[in-house]
């Protein structure tokens, strides 16, 4: 196991976990378990909070500012990416006070197109590198994939972990790959996709979260969007607990990104309530929380119009880019 990029501030019990694979395994297995019944109960409880009027308006704008507007299809073209970038710049042409989204998320070969369209804006360019979505390739290819995205102008990298290695207990390999990709990224922020739909248990989600945090991931992200289930409230709750505990133990703030399956304003608000009450209000910020989504933005825009206009206008009044 490589031990590069050890944060000098890391407390000894966390630094020790990084010494070798055996220590890492011991540390991950020593994490508190997750009781599914209690976890899901808490998620269901949080989902009943009532967000209306002023609170809703604030939540909608916040959610818009947290969207990583995403297109990850085999059929992606330069035209598709350009129109997505235009949408990112001006989500609602009729309402210029609408916040812009956090980032546009594309495959590495489309980064250059997106970067050209978004030059001069504060919108990030995220790219799903590392043999996304399966992650089934050599480390050299994953590094090359990441390098391509970075060279083309990506400002954020979304990597997938090797779920096969994780599930077979080879946590050192997963750790090393994250460390290696973070090494390539340098100061560019790295989102580590756990693909929770393939991890099977909440205990695995907690362990994978800590593994990614220990290896230097800036974000932990639920899913690629290609596997079902993608993001769920209980899984996101476990990940929010992980970054909160990481903050308590290190003082560092790491970010969380649920991705896949979040399509409605109502859903997004449930996530924001969870962010607020599980991690804390500090995480109500696009720097520390993102939604990976493609269709969510339009529902947010329609609900935003409903709040400002006083009536619902329908999908023909927002753009379909």
């Amino acid at each position, binding site marked *: 196991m490589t031990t590069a990029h050890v944060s000098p*501030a890391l407390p000894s019990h966390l630094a020790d976990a990084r010494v070798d694979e055996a220590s890492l395994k011991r540390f991950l297995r020593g994490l508190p378990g997750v009781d599914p019944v*209690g976890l899901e109960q808490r998620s269901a409880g949080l989902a009943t909070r*009532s967000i209306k009027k002023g609170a809703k308006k604030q939540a909608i704008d916040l959610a818009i500012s947290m969207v990583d507007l995403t297109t990850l299809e085999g059929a992606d073209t330069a035209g598709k990416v350009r129109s997505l970038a235009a949408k990112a710049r001006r989500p609602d042409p009729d309402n210029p006070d609408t916040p812009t989204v956090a980032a546009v998320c594309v495959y590495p070969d489309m980064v250059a197109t997106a970067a050209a369209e978004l030059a001069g804006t504060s919108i990030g360019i995220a790219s799903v590198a590392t043999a996304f979505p399966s992650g089934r390739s050599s480390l050299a290819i994953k590094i090359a994939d990441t390098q391509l995205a970075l060279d083309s102008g990506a400002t954020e990298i979304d990597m997938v972990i090797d779920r096969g290695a994780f599930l077979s207990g080879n946590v050192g390999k997963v750790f090393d790959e994250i460390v290696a990709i973070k090494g390539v990224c340098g100061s560019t922020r790295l989102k580590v996709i756990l693909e929770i739909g393939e991890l099977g248990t909440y205990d695995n989600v907690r362990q994978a979260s800590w593994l990614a945090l220990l290896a230097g991931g800036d974000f932990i992200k639920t899913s690629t969007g290609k596997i079902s289930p993608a993001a769920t409230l209980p899984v996101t709750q476990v990940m929010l607990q992980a970054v909160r505990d990481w903050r308590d133990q290190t003082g560092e703030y790491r970010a969380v990104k649920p991705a896949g399956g979040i399509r409605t304003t109502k859903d997004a608000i449930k996530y924001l309530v969870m962010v607020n009450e599980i991690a804390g209000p500090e995480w109500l910020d696009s720097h520390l929380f993102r939604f990976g989504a493609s269709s969510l933005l339009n529902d947010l825009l329609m609900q935003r119009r409903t709040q400002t206009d006083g009536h619902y206008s329908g999908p023909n009044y927002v753009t379909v880019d």
Partner: protein
Amino acid sequence: MTTASAAQPLQWDYAPAPESAAIGRIKPRYQPYINGHFVDGGGVDDVTINPGTEEALATVSQCDDANVDAAVKAARTGYDKYWSKLSGAERGKYLFRIARAIAERSRELAVVETLDNGKPIKESRDVDVPTAAAHFFYHAGWADKLQHAGLGAHPQPLGVAGQVIPWNFPLLMAAWKIAPALAAGNTVVIKPAETTPLSLLVLAEIFAEADLPPGVVNILTGAGDVGSALVNHPGVDKVAFTGSTNVGKKIQASLAGTGRKLTLELGGKAANIVFDDAPIDQAVEGIVNGIFFNQGHVCCAGSRLLVQESIAEEVLAKLKDRIGTLRLGNPMDKNTDIGAINSAAQLARITALADTGEGEGATRWTSSCAIPDRGFYFPPTIFSNVSQSMRISREEIFGPVLSVLTFRTPDEAIAKANNTPYGLSAGVWTEKGSRILGMAGALKAGVVWANTFNRFDPTAAFGGYKESGFGREGGLSGLAAYLRPELEA
């Protein structure tokens, strides 16, 4: 690595979402329900107030001894003339009808309960009312199957049941008591607490609409003197009481030698035991649910947290963070987690008992949540550095006050948990299955929850050991408390 310490956190306040009080259809005046009619009691009218605002809700006609006598006689006639003559299947139909009506009027009942009791609407809506309906549904199913309950081939009802219920779960406690009594073929005279009579009087409307024969259920209003007259009435064959241990002791003394059956469900000081291998985040949830559910007005509340010393600091820190997110305030707001204390008297009791904790040297921590100007409220409070010898770890506080003790080994946890005059419930938090089973066998408590707390189901028997009473409610053993084998007849 991102060390970006977050900027100024966003101040995002949830919108208030109060349920409309109009849904409760509170009438200006309520009367006791005797022999199938709402009639004036012989006592002076009393006012029931909304503990969330201290405003008067309704006046309630109070009963006197003559009303108690009339109600017991009506129950006897109802038993002889109607209820004992019906087949189990017919009794079951009435119970199903009542269960459906509770479900249909669930919003109204939830609002009435919250206005009268002070508990958060989300608890009355999501717990009290659905569970009350579930008790009627469950027992409706038993009404025609009593011969399969393991109590002999033809178990017989006892006759007239006199029941007294407390103010913490008025509707739910009424369902716990009335449903099995009726299913088993008994008739009922029941008295709710003087501070929370309304939901039971709405239930009386449901009984009337269900065409329950006259006298089968009678509801008396009034304070302890009415309850005392009821349980001591010679026409009562069985007494069921839920309430304080002191009153339970008096009832037991006065019934001794009369041959009348008695079940008591009294106080508690439950231990909620958290081992170092527990699922900590869910344990914190369970601790919160154990003591702050219904403002801690729960006889089985997990009021003593026993946490393994090796994780005590971590658990306490997480617990305080979590309690900081609890929203205290208007019980009618759907966002409210902690509502009002039921009465000024109860608030005074909690305040006084909590104050002794500091006097005895425990460390007090209180949530900094805002407290409404009007109404009876007590902020969530934790005492750490508590020892077994302190009053706060021995006496039932019946409020949102948690005492935190530590232990080192499972044996020590068992010794401390059982070192109480009570024995109603306990909780165990561990990922180790064998430990759960071992602890459940060793704890002297009627209910032991594993990796959860304060969960209720009509099929699960509930009741206590030692000064927490005897007899069970719910499940087969609860049914047995209202039946005798044919041979005893």
